[in-house]
């Protein structure tokens, strides 16, 4: 029982970090009706911004985290929206999706060539010491990662549902033409969405990189799992992305412990196929009509 609890909590902790990246997929989908296939790299890059802050500018870790967060919001939020999304979106969603794939390659190769191809150690935010949790030995890092990730999701949900700006952002996502007529500054709301996505990706990076180490190829795995998590949970719902992330994190850990670790990489794909066959809108998602 204690082993099950340990595996469950560890899975929830990892899954909650996947959820942060998956929520980014949902946000960008709602704001721009496109899929950002560079999302995984958006989680990889901020870790290197932090390492640059510490290594090149001699910043203490906490300041480097703030530097990484700010730079990510500037580059992966503002610049991404202004230089890639805005000019390319009028040419169609598919064109933009292909552009994000190219961006993923660009970011990956830039980090590899300009920083290092080797995995870099990344300081942990929380101690990795074990603690006793109802008889299970669970690392403090896992518990705090879970708490921090879920807190971020709660704050984001409260922001979107309980503030006027959040309501305007939802309106801009659900019906931009009408929102504009009602006085909502739709362009600004879309920009906020991209800034929040960059911030979520950065926070996911700060939590997960101590476990995976900072490596140029991290985005491939994280991006794929977060994408699947968003589809499994429901691409058009933040709570769906949360459920998808947690589910994949837990199932991954349970399978690796109780079945086999050999095929754990296949699990998200199996889950994806099952969901697409049984409930294509995702566990929490709602179907969206498309006319041709």
């Amino acid at each position, binding site marked *: 029982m204690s082993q099950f609890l340990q595996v469950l909590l560890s899975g929830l902790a990892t899954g909650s970090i996947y959820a942060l990246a998956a929520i980014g997929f949902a946000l960008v989908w709602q704001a721009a009706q496109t899929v950002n296939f560079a999302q995984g790299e958006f989680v990889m890059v901020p870790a290197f911004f932090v390492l640059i802050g510490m290594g090149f500018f001699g910043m203490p870790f906490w300041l480097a985290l703030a530097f990484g967060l700010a730079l990510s919001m500037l580059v992966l939020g503002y610049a991404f929206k202004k230089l890639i999304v805005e000019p390319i979106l009028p040419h169609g969603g598919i064109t933009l999706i292909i552009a994000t794939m190219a961006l993923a390659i660009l970011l990956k190769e830039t980090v590899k060539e300009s920083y290092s191809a080797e995995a870099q150690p990344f300081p942990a935010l929380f101690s990795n010491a074990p603690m006793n949790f109802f008889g299970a030995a669970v690392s403090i890092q896992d518990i705090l990662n879970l708490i921090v990730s879920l807190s971020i999701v709660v704050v984001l949900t409260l922001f979107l549902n309980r*503030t*006027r700006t959040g*309501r305007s952002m939802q309106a801009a996502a*659900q019906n931009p033409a009408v929102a504009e*007529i009602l*006085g909502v500054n*739709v362009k600004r709301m879309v920009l906020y969405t991209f800034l929040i996505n960059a911030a979520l990706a950065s926070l996911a990076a700060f939590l997960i990189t101590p476990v995976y180490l900072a490596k140029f190829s991290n985005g491939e795995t994280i991006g794929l799992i977060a994408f699947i998590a968003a589809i499994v949970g429901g691409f058009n719902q933040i709570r769906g992305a949360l459920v998808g992330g947690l589910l994949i994190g837990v199932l991954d850990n349970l399978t690796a412990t109780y079945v086999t670790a050999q095929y754990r990489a296949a699990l998200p794909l199996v889950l994806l196929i099952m969901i697409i066959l049984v409930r294509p809108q995702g566990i929490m998602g709602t179907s969206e009509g498309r006319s041709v």
Partner: protein
Amino acid sequence: MTAPVLSVRNIEKRFGGIRAVRGVSFDVHKGEILGLIGPNGSGKSTLFNCILGQLVPNAGEVAVSGRDVSGMRPSDLNKLGVGRTFQQLSVFPRMSVFDNIILAGQEHRGTMSSRLFGAPDAGLTQDAERMIAFFRLTHLRDELAGSLSYGQQKLVDAAMAFMAGPSIVLLDEPAGGVNLTMLAHLKDRLVTYNAEHGTTFVVIEHNMEFVMSLCTRIIVLAEGAVIAEGTPDEIRSNQTVIDAYLGG
């Protein structure tokens, strides 16, 4: 004499070689309910979109209460007291009726910080409750707008258009797809609101019974140009209109 609430002068809109709107001019005065009718393709919606800044006309000017608003963005026009409803459903489907109504009024209030940290209802709860009650939507207050019937969503759309206290509202086919009971209710609410608040309406509509009984003056468009203007009775008996639109 006070300036017209809405003044449209020589609006011209071309799409390639097609002249969708040909030098249309008219004034609308405070408290008037003006109908814009005409066959499909006569340029009514294009004219609406030019007035509201959603299309840029090739020529002409639009003024609201004497102020030139040509080329102004829809969101800025809204702040000047111009509201509109849409031909297609225009509610926010994954928000409650109450949140839809609040949203329609909140953009006129507050500062950047109050948008983040101020009351989420922007101090509009009482106004929203009144508007919901006025359109008899109280029993649907907390329902998701997307779950309502078509007619109910049209009522929410109308309530949203009035929430910011506009001086003029442009209604694009409010009767389209609405059943007879709901239509009578919608007309009753529009007439009552007009009488109580003196709000000016411009209505595009194909339902002749609805438009003739609602409007005080009617302009008829055909092939992008005005072919007749007058009271509902004058329009009914106008031979040019009968030939071009109303039929035998």
